[in-house]
């Protein structure tokens, strides 16, 4: 039997349900009893205490540890058992333990009410919302640290922080932001919208999905704990031998990255398997939305690159605790080994961050341009091409160290090569906008800004791939400005485009347009005023991660710092918009406020717990904007058509 356009009409009662892994979720309302964030905090706290005691007990017999005041084993065990307690407390390990007794999944219990957001929930929509809050907490923490950095750089001679404190703030800022950026789209929007966009009623592995969020949040606690262990002085790249020499805060960095890498693997694994297996009937690969293409390319990178980070972190932890010498050159190791392992993950990581941003923009542009996505297949091929090539460029991070100079042209070439599929994706956007009657709504403005910013970030990246330029500007503000333009100017702007675009579907409430416009313009203007001067500052020779600089650069630094403060303030407008639109003065959003043809907009709002009352049968791709006689997107079955406030045919006909 296969699902076809022939739709059922008769209803039978069946007391004996199907096996749990294909059954629909059971609804339950829960109070404060059971497992939730509170029990996770208690579990984490108890685990921390136990681990710290255990570490001190184990290591107290070694005089060199007892006398050093730095017991890395105690710090590691405290953090490890804290994470374990956190996971036990939230209920992440209930099912793995139950499996040992031969039990299969007990059906997906979906808690109702607001408490579900504080639980180990298996509904991908709840996990998506949890991720939204999680990444914003990461983002604002990293943002506050950025404000501290810019405050210090207001004056080259009058200092707010010591040099030591400054580098630790920079390190914490970079690490938190990178951890956040690796999940900022995949976590919230990927988990929430991929099943909806492919016509699925569930994720392939909902427990792994929920696990990915809760271990991601544990990773935040771990990396934040570095501040209480004295921080770490290596920047986000954690280079040895500084890594080896650093205090216990380095354990937080290494263990934090290892934890986050497990979360990234889990998220990517689940999304990839879901996209491969749960696409609705009729959704061939040529009908998959471009956002989903970007997510599957990213998922491939997450699953294959993150294990290398895990191994690198493990080796670093072994160096710090059991005194191995992976990264200690004097004992037969090599500090360059860390660089290689780190960047073998680190460069695909750049595309883990960039690709979902391209996916969002590719998804939103046709909606507001009212045109089909230009060269859809090239966009999809470009994303796969970027994902593949990203594994072959990591050595360009080692142009100045740890590489045979004869190998540099090869990696210069591969790095320049990757700009070709990236350029495809860029040109797909331009082709979509060409001769379009664009509606300049807030999400669209953010998308346009992505192209503007990424053009600057991308072109400066091509400069940096050339060895002579790289040798000249390496380690300075030019590089810093380049990657802020690509990550913040590309990814974070795309993330906000996605939030403004999809929040009405996620919450059923409209975002305030006026506040949205204020947010966009202040963020766009002050982002460019903050980071563009840094290209000049870098070319004039200011190095990264140093808290003082030449006096003649103060004007540019002050300009950049003041712009950064105003950029920070622009996010307060976003917070105010969220508070106003969602809580203080909520206004119901139309079912399909942007007249999108996307499948995610064709189901009812609020979205049923099982997404679609009937599994849709897909008839075409979702980009037939303004095409007379365009086919209907999907057959949703009679029941769903009745429940949905905006059936697909209405959107299509509106365009005709």
């Amino acid at each position, binding site marked *: *039997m*296969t*699902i076809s356009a*022939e739709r*059922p009409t*008769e*209803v*039978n009662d*069946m*007391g004996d*349900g*199907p*096996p749990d*892994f*294909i*059954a*629909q979720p059971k609804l339950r309302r829960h109070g404060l009893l059971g497992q939730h964030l509170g029990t996770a905090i208690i579990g984490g706290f108890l685990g921390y205490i136990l681990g710290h005691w255990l570490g001190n007990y184990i290591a107290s017999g070694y005089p060199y540890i007892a006398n050093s005041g730095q017991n890395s084993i105690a710090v590691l065990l405290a953090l490890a058992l804290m994470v374990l307690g956190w996971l036990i407390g939230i209920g992440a390990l209930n099912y*793995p333990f139950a*499996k040992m*007794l*031969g*039990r*299969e999944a007990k059906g997906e219990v979906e808690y109702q009410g607001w408490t579900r957001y504080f639980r180990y929930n298996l509904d991908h929509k709840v996990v998506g919302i949890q991720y939204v809050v999680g990444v914003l907490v990461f983002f604002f923490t990293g943002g506050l640290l950025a404000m501290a950095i810019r405050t210090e750089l207001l004056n080259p001679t009058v200092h707010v922080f010591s040099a030591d404190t400054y580098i630790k703030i920079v390190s914490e800022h970079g690490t938190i932001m990178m951890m956040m950026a690796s999940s900022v789209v995949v976590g919230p929007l990927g988990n929430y919208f991929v099943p909806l966009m492919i016509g*699925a*009623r*569930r994720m*392939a592995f909902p427990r792994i999905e929920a696990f990915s969020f809760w271990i991601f949040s544990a990773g935040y606690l771990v990396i934040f704990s570095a501040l209480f262990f004295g921080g770490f002085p290596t920047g986000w790249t954690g280079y040895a031998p500084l890594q080896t020499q650093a205090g216990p805060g380095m354990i937080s960095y290494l263990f934090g990255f290892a934890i986050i890498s497990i979360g990234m693997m889990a998220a990517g*694994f689940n999304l*990839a*398997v879901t996209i*491969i*297996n*749960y696409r609705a009937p009729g959704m061939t690969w040529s009908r998959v939305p471009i956002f989903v293409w970007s997510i599957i390319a990213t998922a491939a990178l997450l*699953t*294959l*690159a*993150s*294990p*290398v980070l*895990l191994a*690198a972190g*493990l*080796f670093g932890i*072994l*160096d710090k605790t*059991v005194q*191995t*010498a*992976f990264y200690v*050159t*004097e*004992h*037969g*190791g*090599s500090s*360059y*080994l860390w660089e290689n*392992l780190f960047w073998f993950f680190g460069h695909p990581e750049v595309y883990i961050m960039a690709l979902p941003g391209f996916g969002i923009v590719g998804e939103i542009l046709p909606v507001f341009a009212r045109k089909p996505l230009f060269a859809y297949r090239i966009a999809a091929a470009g994303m796969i091409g970027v994902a593949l090539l990203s594994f072959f460029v990591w050595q360009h991070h080692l142009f100045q160290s740890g590489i045979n100079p004869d190998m540099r042209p090869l990696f210069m070439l591969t790095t320049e090569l990757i700009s070709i599929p990236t350029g495809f994706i860029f040109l797909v956007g331009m082709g979509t906008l060409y001769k379009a009657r664009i509606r300049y709504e807030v999400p669209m403005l953010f998308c346009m800004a992505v192209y503007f910013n990424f053009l600057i970030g991308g072109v400066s990246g091509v400069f940096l791939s050339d060895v002579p330029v790289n040798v000249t500007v390496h380690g300075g503000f030019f590089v810093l400005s380049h990657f802020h333009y690509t990550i913040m100017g590309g990814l974070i702007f795309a993330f906000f485009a996605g939030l403004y675009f999809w929040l009405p579907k996620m919450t059923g409430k409209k975002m305030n347009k006026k506040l949205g416009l204020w947010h966009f313009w202040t963020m766009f203007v002050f982002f460019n005023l903050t980071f563009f001067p840094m290209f000049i500052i870098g070319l004039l020779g200011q190095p990264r991660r140093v808290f003082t600089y030449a006096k003649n650069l103060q004007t540019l630094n002050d300009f950049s710092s003041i712009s950064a403060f105003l950029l920070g303030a622009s996010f307060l407008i976003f917070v105010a918009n969220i508070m106003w639109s969602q809580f203080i003065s909520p206004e119901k959003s139309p079912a399909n406020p942007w007249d999108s043809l996307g499948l995610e907009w064709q189901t009812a709002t609020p979205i049923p717990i099982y997404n679609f009352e*009937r*599994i849709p049968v897909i008839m075409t791709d979702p980009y037939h904007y303004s095409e007379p006689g365009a086919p209907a997107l999907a057959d949703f079955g009679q029941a769903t058509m009745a429940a949905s406030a905006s059936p697909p045919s209405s959107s299509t006909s509106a365009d005709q």
Partner: protein
Amino acid sequence: MTDIIKDSHGMSDTPEEREFELRAHIGSIWSGGRLFIGMYTFLIASLAFSYFYLRSSNNGLLWRPDHVTGPTAYGWAIWSLTMLAAGMAIFGRRRFRKGNSADWMIAGWVGLSAALLALFLQVWEWQKIPFYPGSSGYASTFIGYTIINLLTIAIVVYWLETTLARALRLRKELGGENAEYSMHPSAQSFRANVASMTYFLGFVAIASTLMFAMFYLL
């Protein structure tokens, strides 16, 4: 026209939808198992890269002074037991596919016992290592290898144990029907899981052999 099946919670599915969900579920186990192998390959490749990187760098001539080696007897024992566990899983699945569930169960329990013993020996080996962890590049990578091998064997133990425990319960659920031939969704899911697990153990056998050769024989 087909029926809508309504469960006790008032939600409904058509038989076609349930079949679609089942196919997707089984496909997920299949592709998930393969993807997991891909992930694990990169983890092990990181260790192999470290091994050869430090070996070729030979910084301070401290890659492997005096050609020190991990406890070879333990290495042989752990490798043999891992191979036995993998071999039993592969043999058991062949028997299972011919409808002989009892053989599969026996092979599974033997494999699990072997894997548990390997796990124990891998931990115990730390007591017997004849060099300081940071004494050389080889010593460091050897410690890294023992950790990753421990993790690998622990995954094998967990997967084997949960599959065997599931098989015991499944017998009751199927009311004596043979899990290999039953069309019950739980049986289909179980078969997909056994196939993925066996595939992973085959991968473990290959990876363990390569690692064993690197750390004990080269």
